[in-house]
């Protein structure tokens, strides 16, 4: 029985709710609701004007129906009418309705805003609060436009009641969050900050949320709040439990206010003023001390409130990262919580320690708890706690414990929840790469990852292991051997086949000497998995086969037999069919030299940011991967190449010397610098995006340009073109790439309106690589290619700029020799 009378109870509403609850089925419920809706509709439309009480009742019923989950498309007008009533309960229901069923009808919005304005200026605090609550609940742009100017005034006015001030502060906060540009604090700033000193704790509590948000966006304007916050906090922390009366919660003085003050302080660096800083440090020490004292109450509310303040204080200490004494104490406190009875505290301790692990002062202290954390990983029943333990292991990992941690994470992965496997895989991959001293350990780890959680090993992970193996000569043999052994398992994951296929294709020769892994054995091993794999994997395997033909001529006839079979050359998948046909042809007509050149070993990859880190960051949100980590990754990645000369930043645009030897596929030619494009907008670098594309394809094109010559074009991972003319193009002169002779040949010719796709096909048909997103004008086409004559290689770049209106196009070709450019232009012009 309620102690106080609750006013009218809207009997009709209660009856209606009972009816709904008594409905035996969903259909009965819908029937009853429809009946009521019809009733209400007729009452609203009826001739008799409804009295306030009835209107209130019906609007409330509509609200109830809406909250059940049904759509309501009327009643707004009546709700708005209720707003202008002088009866509090009617106003209340009206406001509740319109804040729950937000309507974007502009006429209604105008009426609502009017009603709010009236209530705001009514000087009746209860009405003002209702209006402010409504604005805070809806927070629409229209409301911000109408009231963002008025509310700060109400907030700081001397005669505003405390309860109204509280509502005004949080209302303003809501408006600021949704329409920051409309809330101009300017003249109110200092008065708002001064609210921190208000006598009424409720006002301070509300104001501080507003100030925290504003400080984050305008730290300088609000920095005077720091010292005020510190003194307020200090007063609370040192107060006896009887001082704060109503604001003491289970013997803890003002816990919400304390937490908010500590949050506010996290928006700023440690205070510069010595006195302020001293007071703050004293505060924090007091809080840490109190945690060690016996509790004043057995109730969980007491310990939760006390610990809430403690955790927030620890967050502040971590944020400052400048008081080693406090950091170590915080770490020890968290260490105690790690073994606490209460699961909540263990969870929070693990979470807090994660942040602590990245501080240089406490990193070592955190590491001392490694056994506890590993134990948590193994024994915690709650999956969210286990996940936190895994996160902490990741954060505390460094050279000294990497092997141990990776091993633990791998064994955890075997039984981990499916929802977290992908993230775990990424983390293990990152750790293995970052702290690998011995790269064979790295290769083992990744292969283990594939074995344990193959489905969750994303492309970035296995691309990376291949990049690393290719870049490091010392681990290639080991990789080949390990992968060969791994493939022998009866049921191995498709990702393993991909990695195995690629590595054996490149480095199978390193283990071919051993009779157990002779070429034919390798081929049969790979081929035994062929029919179990998806199309992309099969495509990769086909590429591996042609590489085998190059590496091991003795396998040629066996492999050709396979390629020739109907299941390959008449395969229903276009990609597979194309590859089978072309590889077969290539193997039969190319001389060994040509074959060797086309299928030359993949050159080392240039350095770039690990795409795995990027993927993890994307998954977890921006906070997950610290900038330090990313930069470290870049630095440490320099070791990837094993100190090779290749390297250098491939993302440089234009003039920086980049390994454009890679660009043009010239392993034998002199290192070529990327020529500065005369127009300034051409991006010479082909490696514009991180991430390796699909393995490669060979496409046989018979081109009219070269008349009866059969030309084989191909491009592999890095969009390198090898255009191998099989006849000598004798009219070409020997050329060397020389950056000092940029040439442009401008051809204007009329042409019929072309569709972009058609143009693309033509350009691709020439065997050049079409570079996307290189030219700022999306209408233009940019291509790059290498023309390999028997004696020389000629790099060329091409830009086609169509001008639809003028029905003309401009074709620019650049290569090192005028004659080559001219000839290419002529030939290409024929195409268009």
């Amino acid at each position, binding site marked *: *029985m309620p102690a106080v009378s609750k006013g009218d109870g809207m009997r009709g509403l209660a009856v209606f709710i009972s009816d709904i609850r008594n409905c035996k089925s969903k259909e009965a419920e819908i029937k009853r609701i429809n009946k009521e809706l019809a009733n209400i509709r007729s009452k609203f439309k009826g001739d008799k004007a409804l009295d306030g009480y009835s209107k209130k009742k019906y609007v409330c019923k509509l609200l109830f129906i809406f909250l059940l989950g049904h759509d309501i498309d009327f009643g707004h007008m009546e709700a708005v009418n209720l707003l202008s009533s002088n*009866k509090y309960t009617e106003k209340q229901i009206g406001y509740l309705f319109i804040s729950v069923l937000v309507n974007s009808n502009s006429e209604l919005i105008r009426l609502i805003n009017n009603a709010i304005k009236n209530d705001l200026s009514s000087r009746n605090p209860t009405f003002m609060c209702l209006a402010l609550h409504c604005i805070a609940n809806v927070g629409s742009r229209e409301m911000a436009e109408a009231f963002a100017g008025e509310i700060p005034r109400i907030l700081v006015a001397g005669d505003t009641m405390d*309860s109204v001030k509280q509502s005004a502060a949080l209302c303003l906060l809501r408006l600021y969050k949704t329409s920051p540009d409309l809330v101009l604090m300017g003249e109110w700033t200092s008065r708002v900050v001064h609210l921190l000193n208000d006598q009424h704790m409720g006002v301070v509590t*509300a104001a501080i949320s507003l100030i925290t948000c504003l400080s984050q966006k305008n730290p300088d304007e609000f920095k005077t709040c720091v010292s005020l916050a510190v003194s307020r906090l200090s007063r609370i922390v040192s107060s006896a439990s009887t001082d704060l009366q109503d604001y003491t919660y289970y013997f803890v003085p003002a816990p919400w206010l304390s937490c908010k003050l500590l949050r506010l302080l996290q928006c700023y660096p440690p205070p510069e003023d010595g006195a302020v800083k001293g007071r703050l440090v004293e505060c924090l020490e007091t809080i840490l001390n109190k945690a060690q004292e016996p509790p004043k109450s057995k109730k969980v509310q007491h310990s939760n409130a006390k610990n*809430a303040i403690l*955790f927030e204080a620890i967050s502040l200490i971590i944020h400052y990262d400048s008081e080693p004494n406090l950091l170590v104490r915080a770490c020890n406190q968290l260490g105690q919580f790690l073994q606490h009875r209460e699961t909540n505290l263990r*969870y929070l301790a693990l979470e807090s320690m994660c942040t602590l692990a990245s501080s240089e002062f406490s990193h070592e202290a955190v590491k001392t708890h490694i056994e506890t954390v590993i134990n948590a990983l193994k024994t915690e029943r709650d999956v969210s706690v286990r996940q936190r333990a895994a996160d902490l292991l990741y954060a505390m990992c460094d050279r000294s414990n990497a092997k141990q941690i990776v091993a633990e994470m791998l064994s955890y992965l075997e039984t981990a929840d499916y929802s977290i496997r992908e993230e775990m895989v990424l983390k293990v991959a990152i750790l293995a790469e970052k702290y690998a001293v011995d790269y064979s350990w790295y290769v083992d780890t990744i292969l283990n990852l594939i074995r344990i959680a193959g489905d969750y090993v994303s492309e970035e992970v296995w691309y990376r292991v291949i990049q690393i193996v290719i870049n490091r000569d010392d681990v290639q043999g080991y990789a080949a051997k390990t992968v060969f052994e791994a493939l022998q398992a009866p049921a191995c994951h498709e990702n393993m086949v991909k990695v195995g296929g690629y590595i054996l294709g490149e480095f199978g020769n390193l283990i071919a000497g051993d009779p157990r892994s002779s070429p034919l054995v390798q081929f049969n091993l790979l081929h035994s998995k062929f029919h179990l794999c998806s199309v992309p994997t099969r495509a990769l395997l086909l590429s591996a086969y042609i590489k085998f033909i190059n590496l091991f001529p003795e396998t040629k006839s066996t492999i050709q037999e396979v390629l020739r079979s109907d299941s390959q050359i008449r395969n229903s998948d276009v990609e597979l069919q194309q590859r089978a046909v072309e590889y077969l042809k290539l193997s039969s007509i190319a001389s060994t030299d040509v074959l060797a050149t086309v299928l030359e070993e993949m050159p080392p990859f240039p350095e770039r940011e690990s795409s795995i880190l990027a993927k993890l960051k994307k998954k977890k949100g921006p906070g997950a991967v610290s900038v330090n980590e990313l930069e470290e990754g870049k630095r440490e990645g320099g070791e990837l190449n094993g100190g090779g000369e290749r390297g250098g930043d491939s993302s440089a645009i234009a003039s920086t010397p980049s390994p454009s030897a890679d660009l043009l596929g010239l392993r034998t030619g002199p290192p070529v610098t990327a020529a500065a494009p005369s127009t300034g907008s051409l991006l010479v670098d082909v490696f514009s995006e991180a991430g390796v594309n699909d393995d490669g394809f060979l496409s046989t094109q018979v081109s009219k340009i070269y008349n009866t010559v059969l030309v084989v074009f191909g491009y592999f991972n890095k969009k390198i073109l090898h255009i191998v003319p099989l006849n000598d193009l004798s009219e070409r002169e020997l050329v060397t790439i020389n950056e000092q002779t940029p040439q442009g040949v401008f051809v204007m010719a009329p042409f019929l309106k072309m569709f972009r796709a058609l143009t693309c096909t033509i350009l691709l048909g020439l065997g050049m690589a079409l570079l996307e997103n290189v030219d700022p004008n999306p209408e233009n086409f940019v291509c790059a290619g290498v023309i390999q004559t028997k004696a020389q290689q000629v790099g060329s770049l091409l830009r086609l700029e169509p001008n639809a209106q003028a029905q003309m196009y401009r074709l620019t070709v650049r290569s090192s020799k005028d004659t080559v450019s001219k000839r290419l232009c002529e030939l290409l012009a024929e195409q268009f």
Partner: protein
Amino acid sequence: MQFMLLFSRQGKLRLQKWYVPLSDKEKKKITRELVQTVLARKPKMCSFLEWRDLKIVYKRYASLYFCCAIEDQDNELITLEIIHRYVELLDKYFGSVCELDIIFNFEKAYFILDEFLLGGEAQETSKKNVLKAIEQADLLQEVRRLCFLKAFRGQKHFAEQYS
């Protein structure tokens, strides 16, 4: 706080308060997924979980789950106590509150919530002051509450069960 949901053990939503602008469709989707996730948790598990990019803090009081979604930097333990304070307020207002009170007086539950939290932040943390504000508003009403409505209720009072 981004939103607060109250739902029964059967997954019926008793109160929904949204502090961020979302479409109705999104709200329904979130509700469905989150209710399912929370109901799947076992009793001894901790009160916090990560869901999408939010932290979820929940606690069960008798037949009702109170579930809040907070942002990454918010304090979980204090949110638990926000939930508790809200339950205390309801309890004081209704006198040994139970789920039925919230069903039949849903509008009151919203009003009480608004006096305590606004825009997702704690507005007034003194229990006395919040109740005073609500009672003042009630005094503005004229018709006495019909007592026989209490006869509808027979369910166990859930506030007794918090420890």
